[in-house]
């Protein structure tokens, strides 16, 4: 007897009904969105049900969608039913101003650091987490770097005064003016070159 995606969907709909939306199957993985306050209930149900047995947390991460009003941050869970080998993905959306999510670390020990990482990079506040502090970044950091409002450095910026790293500085690498000047300088120097 093997579990199929249709059964999983039916069981979940029977239990949670309207609270689960956006059913999809991108590249063969059953995906849905749950209301933000029932994430733990969904996981507990998937864990406890004798037929579903989603007892392995593969991955937990967040995604920032600045354009989704009042639900900017998505927390994505990847669960795995090992005996039947079925993967499942579900998301919850929370507002960026108050990203409160119930912690899964009581259910899965594995969630502990994954949630800390998610907090570290997206600022998701996992309620009930035993030790919610930064894990990969320095403790003094006062922003959440993976959010989209923090773009990577502009490759053409010239305000950095750093000769060693090739930007700005007195040599002015990278600026159009500097290139012309350097070429002119080189030409001048070459005139006096002698072979000894």
């Amino acid at each position: 007897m093997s579990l199929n995606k249709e059964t999983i969907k039916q069981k979940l709909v029977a239990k949670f009904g309207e609270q689960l939306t956006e059913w999809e199957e991108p590249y063969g993985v059953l995906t849905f969105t749950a209301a933000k306050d029932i994430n733990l209930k969904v996981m507990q149900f998937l864990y406890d049900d004798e037929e579903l047995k989603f007892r392995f947390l593969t991955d937990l991460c967040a995604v920032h969608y600045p354009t989704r009003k009042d639900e900017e941050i998505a927390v994505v869970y990847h669960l795995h039913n090992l005996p039947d080998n079925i993967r499942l993905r579900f998301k919850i959306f929370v507002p960026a101003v108050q990203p409160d999510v119930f912690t899964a670390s009581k259910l899965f020990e594995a969630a502990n650091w994954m949630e800390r990482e998610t907090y570290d990079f997206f600022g998701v506040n996992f309620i009930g987490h035993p030790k919610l502090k930064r894990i990969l970044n320095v403790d003094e950091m006062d922003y959440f770097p993976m959010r989209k409002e923090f773009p990577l450095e502009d490759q053409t910026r010239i305000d950095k005064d750093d000769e060693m790293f090739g930007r700005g500085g007195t040599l002015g690498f990278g600026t159009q003016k500097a290139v012309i000047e350097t070429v002119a300088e080189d030409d001048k120097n070459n005139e006096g070159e002698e072979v000894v």
Partner: protein
Amino acid sequence: MSDVQHHIKLPDGSIEKQTTTLNLGPTHPATHGVMQNIIELDGERIVSAEQTVGYIHRAFEKLAERRPLYQITTLTDRLNYCSSPINNMGWHMTCEKLLNVKTPKRVDYLRVIIMEIARITDHLICNSIVGVDSGAYTGFLYVMQYRELAYEIYEEVCGSRLTTNMGRIGGFERNFTNTAFEKLEKFLKEFPVAWKEFENLFTRNRIFMDRLIGTGAISAERALNYGFTGPNLRAAGVDYDVRVHTPYSSYEDFDFVVPVGKTGDNYDRFLVRGEEVWQSLSIIEQAYRKVQEFKGADAEVYHADVPEYYLPEKKDVYTKMEALIWHFKIVMGEVEMPKGEVYHSVEGANGELGFYLISDGGRTPYRLHFRRPCFIYYQAYPELTKGAMLSDAIMTMSSLNLIAGELDA
């Protein structure tokens, strides 16, 4: 309380501590990378351990949001750098899944050869380092020369050794040369002899066994709860292997055994890795035979036809218009990828290495998340070492196969 202690004048307000705090790391020889363990010791027994990670965090996920797909391969190199080809192939396969690219069988088999060599090199390091940490240096030096040979194979295939950046979306950048196959044959002939001798040296060695058996043990249930994958999970008795559960790169065509342990302790982890090396050797032999069966034009196939992502050959770029256009578009990162989200995982050398890629139809990923196996299972370290001796904690650390590059992303 001894009399001696009464004579020591402690500064006012200091608390008389019953335990010792020991900083293991970040640059301790026994930590194999920049990670720190703050260990609370009662005599020589460990009361608690706390891990600090993140010393070499390089923001790969953020960097990936600004890069076209082919430039992200170099980031994956630097995750588990003991087996970077597996990471490279895993990444290419994730992209291929998103782009719906079907790779030819020959490419799959060549990839299997490379990935299994990488698994061998990774296990070889881990197991021999377990030896080093228990005070037996010889085995390490003995098998290390075969990693050198494996790296020469990589070098023949892609030009580099440690951070390989091997392959392209759709296949390999060039066909395997005859020299590569000759080196592979040499490896298949000579390495098993060395590995056998390595195992003779360790497996039934009384001192080694006493150091490993019963230390750092974890039950199957706890291991699953902690998100263990790979050899560490299999040592606890769960036969989960991505190569078997969700075959990729035609792993279903191969005949191999998934070794499992029973107790989940350091010794079982050592044995499982040792046996996996034998299985990998058998897979490489099978794959090599299959590769040899391709004759004529089939034997020249080394990539799928994906002009949008696969860099054309240089001579075509100079002579053909189409190739020139694609070359320019790929190098400048001007190819739009389809919209979608995909999770793909491969059996990395230390566990399930997953790539969660979200594309919004742009030229770079909207979001890329790496499921890094050792980041997840390293959480169990305090539980594995609680109540153990300090020297056991060192063994547990090396037998978990922690790679700082992967831990910190």
